[in-house]
């Protein structure tokens, strides 16, 4: 008897799921229809050059009820998705933490109805594409995405934009961010490279030889920071670059590089410029340990470890990438869109040179 009951239960569930599958053509279309219709009024504004999805629709939005301002898919709820790059990296932990705090407070004050929690992109573009589909089905009205790759994560951005979601790309842009996304909030990595180059030139008298520890080759941050270095110190006749060394953002590889080039250049080595400050802080620690406190090491990010070293005076300076500022700028864009205000298409959050003078502002 029991077996029959279980079998009947099984069968009914199967039939239910079958009908669900079978009707996908029609009911799936129906389900997504409101999603595609609702933003239709706003769509022209979104796809055209107009910076904000709702900027042009402001007039109409005023006629609508206040609640429907950010309800792009018309299901009566404003839901925000958050696709992280990963949940392991120190820098991204800062961004994710800032997002969590801010989005929780937006839920608490009723600006948005719910958010998805931090979805783990696992530094895997394909995983981010899957998460984008999850967000479409959730269904989210706005999604913040921190792309893992500039090209490979692009389908995630475009598929969500095609589904009528307001996509906010944060930290680094994908190939079609300019055309598909509602807004981009990030920093100009070329400027970060220039900050580093200028800092070294100012703080080392008479020039000399420097070595450049690179991030993973092909990352946009690696390419652009290298560009900034090329724009400044590499043009200076007083300085020679020993080499660009691929160190994969990895502190231990930067330490090995320092050892190699110290052995090779000895006292001529005056500076180590790194694409991130995990590497520069480790490089500086290695130089200090070898009695070469005079070598200037500098990197980008503003992680807590390097900031602590700046505070202690063992590291001269580091370039802070304001990750929390980027995320908050992205969330500001969503809030502005919900309120029907103009959303800036490209929000550049400046890098900050952190020295012992201002380190207390950023050290937690």
């Amino acid at each position, binding site marked *: 008897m029991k*077996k029959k009951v279980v079998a009947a239960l099984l069968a009914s569930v199967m039939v239910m799921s079958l009908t669900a599958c079978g009707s996908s*053509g029609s009911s799936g279309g129906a389900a997504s229809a409101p999603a595609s219709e609702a933003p239709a009024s706003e769509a022209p504004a979104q796809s055209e050059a107009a910076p904000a999805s709702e900027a042009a629709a402001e007039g109409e939005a005023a006629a609508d009820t206040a609640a429907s301002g950010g309800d792009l898919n018309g299901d009566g709820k404003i839901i925000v998705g958050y696709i992280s790059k990963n949940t392991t990296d120190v820098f991204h932990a800062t961004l994710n933490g800032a997002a969590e705090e801010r989005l929780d407070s937006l839920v608490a004050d009723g600006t948005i109805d719910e958010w998805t*929690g931090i979805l783990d992109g696992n530094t895997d573009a394909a995983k981010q594409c899957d998460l984008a589909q999850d967000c479409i089905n959730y269904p989210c009205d706005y999604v913040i995405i921190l792309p893992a790759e500039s090209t490979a994560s692009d389908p995630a951005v475009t598929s969500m934009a095609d589904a009528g979601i307001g996509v906010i790309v944060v930290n680094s842009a994908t190939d079609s961010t300019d055309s598909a996304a509602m807004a981009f909030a990030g920093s100009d990595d070329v400027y970060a490279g220039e900050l580093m180059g200028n800092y070294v030139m100012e703080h080392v008298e008479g020039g000399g030889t420097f070595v450049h520890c690179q991030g993973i*080759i092909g990352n946009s941050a690696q390419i652009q920071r290298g560009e900034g270095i090329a724009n400044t110190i590499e043009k200076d006749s007083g300085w020679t670059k020993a080499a660009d060394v691929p160190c994969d953002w990895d502190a231990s590889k930067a330490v090995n590089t320092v050892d190699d080039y110290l052995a090779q250049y000895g006292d001529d080595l005056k500076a180590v410029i790194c694409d991130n400050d995990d590497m520069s802080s480790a490089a500086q620690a290695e130089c200090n340990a070898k009695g070469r406190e005079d070598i200037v090491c500098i990197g980008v990010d503003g992680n807590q470890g390097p900031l602590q070293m700046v505070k202690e005076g063992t590291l001269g300076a580091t370039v802070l990438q304001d990750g929390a500022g980027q995320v908050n700028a992205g969330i500001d864009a969503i809030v502005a869109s919900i309120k029907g205000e103009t959303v800036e298409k490209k929000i550049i959050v400046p890098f900050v040179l952190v020295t012992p003078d201002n380190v207390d502002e950023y050290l937690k």
Partner: protein
Amino acid sequence: MSEKKKFYQTDEFRMFMGKYGIGVILIFMIFVIAVMKPRFIYPSNILNVLTQISVNCLIAYGMCLAITTGGIDLSVGPQLALVSVLLGQFIVVRNMNIGLSIILALAATTLFGFINGVLIAKFNMAAFVVTLATQLVIRSIAQIISDGKGMSMASQAFKDIYSGTLIGVPLPIIYMVVISVIMYIVMHWTKFGRYVFAVGGNVNAAIASGVDVFWTKALCYTISGLLAGIAGVIFTSKTGSAQSNIGVAYETDAVAACVLGGTSFAGGISTAPGVLLGAVIIGCIYNGMNFLNIGSYYQYMTKGIIIIFAVLLDMVINKKNR
């Protein structure tokens, strides 16, 4: 009164659970998630989950063959990368026909699968060690070919391999269904399939019965290479980018799908539908946890615990049946 058994103690129930236990777990899971978040079983999301699992499912079939013969194939992740960069070279750089490019790229992964098989079967080396080593070799070859750089695969025809649909069903699901049917036939209806189970179950008995152990094992890894290659084509089409850093740790989800589907690490026990169910469960776990707002820090733990419980349950039930 003593002969009156509870329903879960009856032979019928145990037989049923032995065969379909994992399916019952899946349905229970779907039911729970759907009650908490009805949109989980909307048709669009079901298609979404099935599309997402296609890559893992194909890899898992190959993995299942390897595990069934008593081995494992850790080289599948880099195989994805190899296919991806080869497609980039053929289609973007050399401007070759897409179909031909895919065939050539698949030939490469199939060859590496065969090399795995030969090393394992001919020289009797441990599969774990062999594929751990070839994993490094293949990853390196992919990086050498691509020079470590990503390449955009903008061709719409190529992107349609993933994003296209057939009568409303996304193509990746179609590939998965076709390959599932083929794998079912290969594993359960052919002589080769019986040889695979024989080799994995008791290799000496298999030799005594005249089974060609070398070719059986070699073919298993060759098929695994081919399937990983097909998964790589889908993967590359999905991201629209040819790069050498993809597929890292993809073997873990494939192994998880296999063990959830009742594949025994002792060898000789597995079913094709089980692997499919395992892959669906993994997909439901990922998608469902996101729908239920389970924080990402808890997701891996949840996944680990579900796998342990599912396999434990499966073992407890099946032990009593055998």
